[in-house]
Protein backbone atom coordinates (compact mmCIF):
# COMPACT_ATOMS: atom_id res chain seq x y z
CA UNK A 1 0.00 0.00 0.00
CA UNK A 2 1.40 3.37 -1.00
CA UNK A 3 0.29 6.95 -0.52
CA UNK A 4 1.90 9.61 -2.66
CA UNK A 5 0.59 12.81 -1.15
CA UNK A 6 1.78 16.19 -2.37
CA UNK A 7 3.26 18.70 0.08
CA UNK A 8 -0.03 20.57 0.35
CA UNK A 9 -2.13 17.42 0.74
CA UNK A 10 0.18 16.11 3.48
CA UNK A 11 0.08 19.43 5.32
CA UNK A 12 -3.71 19.65 5.03
CA UNK A 13 -4.22 16.11 6.32
CA UNK A 14 -1.70 16.54 9.13
CA UNK A 15 -3.15 19.90 10.20
CA UNK A 16 -6.70 18.60 10.12
CA UNK A 17 -5.96 15.45 12.16
CA UNK A 18 -3.88 17.24 14.79
CA UNK A 19 -6.46 20.04 15.07
CA UNK A 20 -9.26 17.53 15.62
CA UNK A 21 -7.26 15.70 18.30
CA UNK A 22 -6.33 18.91 20.11
CA UNK A 23 -9.90 20.17 19.87
CA UNK A 24 -11.27 17.05 21.54
CA UNK A 25 -8.45 17.02 24.07
CA UNK A 26 -8.78 20.58 25.26
CA UNK A 27 -12.47 21.47 24.90
CA UNK A 28 -15.61 19.79 26.26
CA UNK A 29 -18.54 21.49 24.52
CA UNK A 30 -19.22 20.65 20.88
CA UNK A 31 -19.34 24.27 19.71
CA UNK A 32 -16.09 25.11 21.49
CA UNK A 33 -14.46 22.10 19.86
CA UNK A 34 -15.58 23.13 16.36
CA UNK A 35 -14.31 26.68 16.90
CA UNK A 36 -11.00 25.40 18.24
CA UNK A 37 -10.54 22.93 15.36
CA UNK A 38 -11.34 25.57 12.72
CA UNK A 39 -9.02 28.15 14.31
CA UNK A 40 -6.19 25.65 14.81
CA UNK A 41 -6.46 24.38 11.21
CA UNK A 42 -6.44 27.93 9.88
CA UNK A 43 -3.27 28.72 11.84
CA UNK A 44 -1.64 25.48 10.66
CA UNK A 45 -2.29 26.45 7.04
CA UNK A 46 -1.32 30.10 7.46
CA UNK A 47 1.97 29.28 9.18
CA UNK A 48 2.74 26.38 6.83
CA UNK A 49 2.18 28.40 3.66
CA UNK A 50 3.80 31.49 5.24
CA UNK A 51 6.98 29.60 6.17
CA UNK A 52 6.98 28.01 2.70
CA UNK A 53 6.92 31.42 1.04
CA UNK A 54 9.50 32.79 3.50
CA UNK A 55 11.89 30.03 2.40
CA UNK A 56 11.20 30.54 -1.30
CA UNK A 57 14.06 33.06 -1.93
CA UNK A 58 16.59 30.56 -0.53
CA UNK A 59 15.26 27.52 -2.38
CA UNK A 60 17.67 27.68 -5.32
Amino acid at each position, binding site marked *: *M*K*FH*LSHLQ*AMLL*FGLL*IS*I*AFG*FLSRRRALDRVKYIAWSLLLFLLFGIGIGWAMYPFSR
Partner: protein
Amino acid sequence: MTDEAQIAAVPPVDSKREARAIAFGIAGWLVPGLGHALQRMWGRAITFFGVVGVLVFVGAGMRGNLFNSQGGDAFATLGYVADLGTGGFYLLAKYIEVGGPDVSHAYGDYGTRFLAAAGVLNLLAALHAYEAARGRKG
Protein backbone atom coordinates in the same frame (compact mmCIF):
# COMPACT_ATOMS: atom_id res chain seq x y z
CA MET B 1 -1.00 26.16 62.61
CA THR B 2 1.50 23.46 63.52
CA ASP B 3 3.27 21.24 61.03
CA GLU B 4 1.19 18.24 62.15
CA ALA B 5 -2.07 20.08 61.46
CA GLN B 6 -0.82 21.06 58.00
CA ILE B 7 0.06 17.47 57.16
CA ALA B 8 -3.35 16.27 58.31
CA ALA B 9 -5.07 18.81 56.02
CA VAL B 10 -3.64 17.11 52.91
CA PRO B 11 -6.24 14.66 51.54
CA PRO B 12 -5.09 11.03 51.67
CA VAL B 13 -4.07 9.46 48.39
CA ASP B 14 -6.68 6.95 47.23
CA SER B 15 -4.43 4.10 46.14
CA LYS B 16 -7.29 2.21 44.47
CA ARG B 17 -8.19 5.21 42.35
CA GLU B 18 -4.52 5.80 41.52
CA ALA B 19 -4.12 2.17 40.39
CA ARG B 20 -7.22 2.49 38.21
CA ALA B 21 -5.89 5.70 36.70
CA ILE B 22 -2.56 4.05 35.87
CA ALA B 23 -4.40 1.08 34.32
CA PHE B 24 -6.48 3.48 32.16
CA GLY B 25 -3.34 5.31 31.10
CA ILE B 26 -1.60 2.09 30.07
CA ALA B 27 -4.75 0.86 28.29
CA GLY B 28 -4.91 4.17 26.41
CA TRP B 29 -1.29 3.77 25.35
CA LEU B 30 -1.67 0.16 24.17
CA VAL B 31 -4.90 0.78 22.25
CA PRO B 32 -5.44 4.45 21.34
CA GLY B 33 -8.70 5.70 22.86
CA LEU B 34 -9.22 2.72 25.16
CA GLY B 35 -8.30 4.72 28.27
CA HIS B 36 -11.14 7.15 27.50
CA ALA B 37 -13.55 4.41 26.38
CA LEU B 38 -13.18 2.69 29.77
CA GLN B 39 -14.29 5.99 31.35
CA ARG B 40 -17.21 6.27 28.92
CA MET B 41 -15.73 9.32 27.18
CA TRP B 42 -16.88 8.02 23.82
CA GLY B 43 -16.22 11.11 21.71
CA ARG B 44 -12.61 11.35 22.79
CA ALA B 45 -12.14 7.58 22.56
CA ILE B 46 -13.36 7.38 18.96
CA THR B 47 -11.45 10.51 17.99
CA PHE B 48 -8.10 9.34 19.35
CA PHE B 49 -8.52 5.88 17.89
CA GLY B 50 -9.37 7.36 14.51
CA VAL B 51 -6.76 10.14 14.44
CA VAL B 52 -3.87 7.96 15.65
CA GLY B 53 -5.01 5.14 13.36
CA VAL B 54 -5.15 7.36 10.26
CA LEU B 55 -1.78 8.97 11.07
CA VAL B 56 -0.15 5.54 11.42
CA PHE B 57 -1.91 4.13 8.35
CA VAL B 58 -0.98 7.05 6.12
CA GLY B 59 2.52 7.41 7.63
CA ALA B 60 3.32 3.75 6.99
CA GLY B 61 1.66 3.96 3.56
CA MET B 62 3.98 6.87 2.69
CA ARG B 63 6.89 4.59 3.66
CA GLY B 64 7.97 6.66 6.61
CA ASN B 65 10.87 5.52 8.77
CA LEU B 66 9.58 3.29 11.56
CA PHE B 67 12.44 3.25 14.05
CA ASN B 68 13.50 0.13 15.94
CA SER B 69 15.49 -0.51 19.11
CA GLN B 70 18.79 -0.77 17.22
CA GLY B 71 19.02 2.96 16.57
CA GLY B 72 22.57 4.18 16.18
CA ASP B 73 22.19 7.68 17.64
CA ALA B 74 20.11 9.78 20.00
CA PHE B 75 17.71 10.90 17.27
CA ALA B 76 16.98 7.30 16.27
CA THR B 77 16.34 6.45 19.92
CA LEU B 78 14.00 9.44 20.27
CA GLY B 79 12.24 8.38 17.08
CA TYR B 80 11.84 4.87 18.47
CA VAL B 81 10.31 6.22 21.68
CA ALA B 82 7.93 8.40 19.66
CA ASP B 83 6.95 5.48 17.40
CA LEU B 84 6.44 3.21 20.42
CA GLY B 85 3.94 5.79 21.67
CA THR B 86 1.45 4.44 19.16
CA GLY B 87 1.18 1.30 21.32
CA GLY B 88 -0.39 -1.60 19.46
CA PHE B 89 -0.47 0.42 16.25
CA TYR B 90 3.33 0.10 16.09
CA LEU B 91 2.82 -3.53 15.09
CA LEU B 92 0.15 -2.48 12.57
CA ALA B 93 2.62 -0.04 11.00
CA LYS B 94 5.24 -2.80 10.77
CA TYR B 95 2.66 -5.01 9.08
CA ILE B 96 1.65 -2.33 6.55
CA GLU B 97 5.19 -1.24 5.76
CA VAL B 98 6.44 -4.51 4.30
CA GLY B 99 8.68 -2.75 1.75
CA GLY B 100 10.58 -0.88 4.44
CA PRO B 101 11.04 2.87 4.70
CA ASP B 102 11.93 5.05 1.73
CA VAL B 103 12.97 8.51 2.81
CA SER B 104 14.68 9.30 -0.49
CA HIS B 105 11.41 11.02 -1.46
CA ALA B 106 9.65 13.86 0.33
CA TYR B 107 6.55 11.75 1.08
CA GLY B 108 8.72 9.17 2.87
CA ASP B 109 10.06 11.91 5.09
CA TYR B 110 6.51 13.17 5.72
CA GLY B 111 5.53 9.62 6.61
CA THR B 112 8.22 9.57 9.30
CA ARG B 113 6.70 12.72 10.82
CA PHE B 114 3.19 11.27 10.63
CA LEU B 115 4.30 8.18 12.54
CA ALA B 116 6.16 10.17 15.20
CA ALA B 117 3.25 12.60 15.59
CA ALA B 118 0.84 9.67 16.02
CA GLY B 119 2.99 8.29 18.85
CA VAL B 120 3.39 11.58 20.68
CA LEU B 121 -0.31 12.36 20.27
CA ASN B 122 -1.26 8.96 21.68
CA LEU B 123 1.04 9.47 24.68
CA LEU B 124 -0.69 12.81 25.27
CA ALA B 125 -4.10 11.14 25.05
CA ALA B 126 -3.01 8.37 27.45
CA LEU B 127 -1.77 11.01 29.90
CA HIS B 128 -5.12 12.79 29.59
CA ALA B 129 -6.96 9.52 30.32
CA TYR B 130 -4.78 9.04 33.41
CA GLU B 131 -5.43 12.58 34.64
CA ALA B 132 -9.17 12.27 33.94
CA ALA B 133 -9.32 9.06 35.96
CA ARG B 134 -7.61 10.85 38.83
CA GLY B 135 -10.29 13.54 38.66
CA ARG B 136 -7.98 16.30 37.51
CA LYS B 137 -9.41 16.71 34.00
CA GLY B 138 -12.92 16.68 32.70
